[in-house]
């Protein structure tokens, strides 16, 4: 089943390069997304047994992130189909500098999209740190063309930075993997997760620490923790909305999974205190960075990108705090992926309606595109953790754990920066949503946002609200199971 999960997107992705007929290709994209989700659900129900020493397998942690990725991808492909149609129709005129550019061929875009899905599936399913590494690197390489969909210099610059910074980061992760191997050298251990966990105590502590540091920096770069986040706002703001949504919602989680895996090993080796310090420190650092940059933000897509950094900080903080906070962090990861993807979808519509990413240029959404505006505001309330929402629960649980763990300083900083983020985003969302709509010049006809492009965001938001009111038992099992994996380190 896992092999199917990976192979179907792989081959269909390769096929997409060959199919020339748009309609058929788009249909295939939707179909593959649907099948992938179906298979994921099947895996969720069946819970295939994990063979020890096997490279691939789905433990609760992997299953959780796989589920999120799959759901996101379905939404994204629904959105993407319509989006690509729109892009085909009108020539790409640059929003801010006004030069004309042409788009990447749709075959390449679709193909990379599907391969990207395959790579991410591999990340979530891999039980071998080497394979995990390879898969993560693959996601980087496959998403680079996606970011460079609009072929103009700024997106090219973004792609270049993304490529280089992430590759360097990933190189660090590779070094970390080797250190991990060195740590296991004495007891002749491979990088197979199962064996690492089962006799983690026999690992060489010094090397294990070094390995964690390198892996943390490596995957942290990919995950967008400050100060390794520098590529993230550029990539998110320059890539098309679909891609930004996938990057923010799925890819960052995958990188986070990498950190979680090695954190698993560390806590199994009794180093949870050591990892905790680092995770908390960088979590707060990311929160601070995100807060300040949001406060000074002029571009709403970058604003969303920084909010992703903020949430990555929250996740890292939660995992670092341990205890109930881990559950909170995972819940937050799920809810954030859905919400942020939805917000990026909406931002794409706003960009289409206003042809600019400048906050100061966007006024009176509620007048010009009411439905989009309502979704935009709902998204704001959800992403800032207004109850009822999964994000709120996650935030609250993390705070509770921090307080009961007597990390008062961390808790205070956490809340302070959350407040700053709230204020900063509140200003931006209000300025954009309220007020009189800017007058259109006769030439451009008002943009009507299509239902098909609003639907995914609406569904995602609904799910997040629902998570804040009702937690289905199976999800609860998975999340708590994953939490046990991270804290307990047991198989």
């Amino acid at each position, binding site marked *: 089943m896992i092999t199917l999960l990976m192979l179907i997107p792989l081959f269909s992705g390769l096929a997409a390069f060959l199919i020339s007929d748009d309609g058929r290709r788009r249909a295939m994209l939707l179909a593959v997304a649907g099948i992938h989700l179906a298979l994921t659900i099947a895996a969720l129900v069946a819970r295939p047994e994990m063979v020890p020493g096997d490279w691939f397998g789905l433990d609760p942690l992997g299953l959780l992130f796989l589920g999120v990725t799959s759901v996101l991808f379905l939404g994204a492909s629904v959105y993407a189909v319509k989006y690509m149609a729109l892009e085909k129709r009108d020539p790409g005129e640059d929003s801010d500098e006004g030069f004309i550019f042409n788009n990447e061929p749709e075959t390449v875009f679709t193909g990379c999209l599907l391969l990207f899905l395959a790579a991410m599936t591999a990340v979530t399913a891999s039980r071998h740190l080497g394979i995990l590494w390879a898969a993560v690197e693959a996601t980087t390489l496959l998403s680079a063309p996606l970011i460079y969909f609009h072929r103009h210099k700024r997106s090219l610059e973004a792609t270049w930075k993304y490529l280089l910074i992430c590759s360097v980061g990933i*190189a660090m992760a590779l070094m970390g993997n080797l250190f991990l191997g060195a740590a296991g050298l004495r007891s002749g251990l491979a990088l197979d997760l199962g064996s690492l966990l089962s006799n983690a105590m026999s690992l060489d502590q010094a090397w294990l620490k070094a390995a964690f540091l390198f892996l943390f920096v490596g995957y942290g770069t990919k995950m967008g923790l400050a100060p390794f986040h520098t590529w993230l706002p550029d990539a998110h703001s320059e890539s098309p909305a679909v891609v930004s949504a996938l990057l923010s919602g799925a890819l960052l989680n995958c990188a986070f999974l990498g950190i979680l895996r090695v954190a698993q090993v560390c806590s199994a080796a009794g180093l949870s205190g050591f990892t905790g310090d680092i995770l908390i420190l960088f979590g707060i650092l990311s929160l601070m960075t995100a807060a300040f940059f949001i406060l*000074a933000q002029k571009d709403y897509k970058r604003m969303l990108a920084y909010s992703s950094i903020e949430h990555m900080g929250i996740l890292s903080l939660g995992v670092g705090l341990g205890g109930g906070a881990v559950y909170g962090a995972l819940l937050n990861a799920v809810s954030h992926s859905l919400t942020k993807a939805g917000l990026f979808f909406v931002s794409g519509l706003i960009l289409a309606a206003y042809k600019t990413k400048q906050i100061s240029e966007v006024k009176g959404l509620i007048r010009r595109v009411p439905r989009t505006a309502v979704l935009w505001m709902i998204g704001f309330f959800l992403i800032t953790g207004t109850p009822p929402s999964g994000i709120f629960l996650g935030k609250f649980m993390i705070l509770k754990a921090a307080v009961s763990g007597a990390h008062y300083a961390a808790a205070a900083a956490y809340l302070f920066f959350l407040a700053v983020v709230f204020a900063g985003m509140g200003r931006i969302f209000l300025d954009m949503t309220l007020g009189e709509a800017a007058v259109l010049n006769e030439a451009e006809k008002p943009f009507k946002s299509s239902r098909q492009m609003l639907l995914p965001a609406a569904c995602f938001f609904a799910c997040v609200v629902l998570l804040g009111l009702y937690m289905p038992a199976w999800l609860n099992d998975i999340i708590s199971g994953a939490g046990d994996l991270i804290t307990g380190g047991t198989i």
Partner: protein
Amino acid sequence: MTTLAELIIVAVILLNLSMAASGSLAACIRLAAAQGVIAALLPLLAGQGVPSGTIVFCCAVILLKGAIFPWLLTRARVKAKVSRDAEPVIGYPASIILCLAAFAAASWLGTKLPLPETARVAWIVPASLSTIFTGFLLLTTRAKAITQVLGYLVIENGIYIFGLALFVEQPLMVEMAILLDVFVAVFVMGITIFHISREFDHIDTAELSQLGDWYPKQTGGEK
């Protein structure tokens, strides 16, 4: 035989220094390639009873780093009509001093990380770490996009020195996968460089710093 291995280590470190010092792009590419090849020799020398899989793997590495990468990069350089010199942001003496400092730091770290006795080659950790730092040096102090790819390659070399010399026992598949990724990475970077050279008149990364949140003129206003 370990003496031979240690000779290689010394060679690697010298290559780092020379890369830090060299001003010609072509020379840099060649030096990096040489470093890769030498590094790939390590496992073959380091001891007897080398498994066949490892031999195959080493050959692959030698092929890739000794032949394909230099070819790719040179081609990129020529296609993109990049001028010959490396245009460092800081002077060569400073580069060399930094490189030495990196080596010192690396050896300090080496003392912190005692190698298990199964690994019989001394100075592995300092060598690989200093190579990595040299790579970072190239990345951060050279102006051109292509030199940054080069820096990335040097970092890779550093990692390989460690990995290969320690024969961290990995299934061949994994090794290959990793190798493939690196290959694709360099390949994609090459393509990107072509694009860059098309979009911009030359590939000095100063051109590539338009995106950002830093508006020097602005000050915090009414909130």
